[in-house]
């Protein structure tokens, strides 16, 4: 079959936009098995698969897709897991259009193979199967031989103690690999749950928390010790850990410090960092207030500043909390928006308005100190800047007033400084991120770092890749230390 005659890409079944804006259930429903097989058959099984070059963790893409095409989902799952510990997460949140799928050969003449959707399908298939099996085991109330031997394997004497600070994707993937290598791993997390941005930032309707919790459970089964309510730099320091016998430390504390614009009025009531808004909703379950006691308010007319994933998540969350009008306010054009294509599309479908080439210069409040609007400027695009994107330039005399009663700021996050500031001798970059090599080695022997705390705000898959690389480097370091 020539490329031309192949069927088009399988559409993702989704909750209808009118329906989903009033609930927090997952928007994309996932392929059926039939759809997955049709989609998998679109893959040309390239000898030199370009798609793999686009994946930061080099998932065995043609291999797992072939297994799907053959209807052998168990093999597909095994192939996937060889490189990616969290396929159910990545299949949902990777920016595929700029990674694996951007390189797919089929994409030249037609739409690329839906690698992410297939990945999600396989991961969900496996989870469903495991669930069914667990239910069966619970029913029979017996322990089969296989499980026995597995648990005794993890019970064998462990190697050295390793500490992980921060339970986001970077820390968790590092912990998983180190546990598999046989180390005695403890993860220290500041919040009351593990998962990092996957739990507090990315909303339920895009990444159900039950999926993240399952992944974290499987980590516990690997023997990883998870300690919550432990703030690095406050409850303990890197030095304390070393004194307590942890022979290596991995720092994966992420980029959780929200940026503000530094314009007048940014501290008025009704101006929220996206992190506050999303954390109240996701982590503290504010959408179920007052059953859960943490309140969250969206306002009626909401402006979300920024156009990345965080901004799209905030805008769509505001709609679900009952806002009447939600606008993305962005100083470049839609083409430059850094969010995943699917999120922008979903936001459009749900009725989020896009006020592009616009930026506020001041947030204006009423006598009670509440936001009543923003003074904005219009922009046009000039010459490309360092990032290669065309630089927005304000149009003279274009100032206008936009009436809003709430502003959600989503213009990026910086590295969390609690650990870095309390660790003497740890070399940092100008923006406060940790200096580390490709494998996560920092300026301090035995101290490794990876994920957003090294790269600045990036992606889940890059953070996981960094965690895996550091796990290998830590293994090497500890082995050479012993000999």
């Amino acid at each position, binding site marked *: 079959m020539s490329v031309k005659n192949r069927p088009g890409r399988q559409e993702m079944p989704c909750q209808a936009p009118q329906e989903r804006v009033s609930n927090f259930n997952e928007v994309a429903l996932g392929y059926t098995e039939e759809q997955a097989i049709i989609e998998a058959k679109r893959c040309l099984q390239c000898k030199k698969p370009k798609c793999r070059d686009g994946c930061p963790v080099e998932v065995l893409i043609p291999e797992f897709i072939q297994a799907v095409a053959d209807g052998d989902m168990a093999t597909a799952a095994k192939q996937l897991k060889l490189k990616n510990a969290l396929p159910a997460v990545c299949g949902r949140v990777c920016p595929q259009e700029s990674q694996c799928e951007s390189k797919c050969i089929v994409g030249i003449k037609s739409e690329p193979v839906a690698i992410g959707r297939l990945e999600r399908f396989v991961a969900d298939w496996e989870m469903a199967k495991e669930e069914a099996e667990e239910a069966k085991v619970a029913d029979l109330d017996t322990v089969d031989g296989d499980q026995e031997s597995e648990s005794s394997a993890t019970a064998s004497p462990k190697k050295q103690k390793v500490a992980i600070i921060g339970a986001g994707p970077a820390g968790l993937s590092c912990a998983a690999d180190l546990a598999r290598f046989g180390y005695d791993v403890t993860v220290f997390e500041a919040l009351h749950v593990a998962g990092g941005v996957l739990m507090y930032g990315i909303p339920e309707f895009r990444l159900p928390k039950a999926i993240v919790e399952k992944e974290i459970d499987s980590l516990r089964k690997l023997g990883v010790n998870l300690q919550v*309510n432990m703030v690095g730099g*406050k*409850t303990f320091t890197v030095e304390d850990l070393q004194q307590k016998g942890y022979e290596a430390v991995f720092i994966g504390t992420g980029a959780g410090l929200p940026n503000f614009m530094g314009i007048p009025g940014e501290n008025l*009531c009704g101006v929220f960092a996206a992190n506050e808004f999303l954390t109240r909703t996701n982590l503290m379950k504010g959408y179920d*207030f007052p059953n859960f006691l943490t309140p969250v308010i969206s306002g009626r007319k909401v402006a979300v500043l920024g156009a990345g994933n965080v901004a799209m998540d905030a805008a769509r969350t505001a709609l679900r909390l009952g806002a009447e009008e939600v606008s993305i306010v962005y100083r470049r054009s839609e083409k430059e928006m850094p969010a995943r294509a699917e999120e922008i599309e979903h936001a459009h479908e749900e009725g989020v308005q896009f006020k592009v080439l616009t930026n506020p210069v001041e947030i204006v409040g009423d006598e009670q100190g509440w936001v009543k609007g923003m003074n904005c400027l219009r922009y046009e695009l000039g010459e490309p800047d360092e990032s290669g994107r065309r630089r927005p330039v304000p149009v003279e005399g274009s100032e206008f007033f936009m009436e809003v009663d709430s502003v959600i700021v989503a213009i990026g996050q910086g590295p969390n400084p609690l650990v870095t500031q309390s660790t003497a001798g740890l070399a940092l970059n100008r923006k406060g991120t940790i200096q580390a090599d490709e494998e996560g080695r920092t300026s301090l022997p035995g101290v490794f770092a990876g994920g957003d705390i090294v790269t600045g705000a990036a992606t889940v898959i890059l953070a996981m890749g960094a965690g895996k690389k550091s796990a290998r480097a830590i293994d090497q370091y500890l082995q050479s230390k012993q000999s």
Partner: protein
Amino acid sequence: MYPIVKKIIHSPAVKEFEVYAPMVAEKAKAGQFFILRVSEKAERIPLTIADYNREQGTITTIIQELGASSTLFGQMEEGDHILDFVGPLGVPSEIERYDHPVVLVGGGIGIAPIFPIARDLKEAGNEVISIIGARNKELLIWEEKMASVSDQLIVCTDDGSYGRQGFVTDALKDLYEERGQLSALWAIGPMPMMRAITNVTRPWELKTIVSMNPLMMDGTGMCGACRVQVGSETKFACVDGPEFDGHLVDFDLAIKRLSIYKDQEKRALAVLEHKGGHCGCQ
């Protein structure tokens, strides 16, 4: 889980708790706070470390029941367990030896957090003068503890039911007339009280430190809920504070920001009281 080892009821809405949290107690310093979540559905609420015992691994705090989450905590008893307890958070008070007396002003339950600061300043060799105040005698807490770490203790009540009658600001003005040279002042209490103190000390150019208590959630610098305008800068009280130069803090804004969720908070409290059967309908 973090067990409550001791509870003292000071008045119907003011309770003192000692909680077993050895990791927090080991590192706790004057001026810091912690965050707790009593149960799965409760809020994360910040409270000041009023005292700590490293040997026994405990933290002491005094809570005023205001809304749903603080009331849930206030209703807990000795032997009950708190679900989450994290700290110590924030930057400790800067303790140094000053040439002239230092003044500690505590208003209402603000007396409790001022205590460890007074103790450390005293231990550092300072002459410590403390002014504590409450609406009435019943609401006055920790007078003896404060006396034990102060060279001079002035007690005020708004209604004159105990000590001298009047506000802590009045006592402070008199003290300044008497003593003149003072090196530094700490004020902790309700925001209007702290604002009043900074207005009194501004013309004296006296270093005045206040401990801000804005809304908080994570306490690690992640959410930005705790923003405080300090001079021309936006500060995060949980990681940059909670202590700031009182002469630079925008109190009007800070007071308004405390009311952001006022309507929701009322609803939550109403639901709680309903569940607790206080309304008598169950």
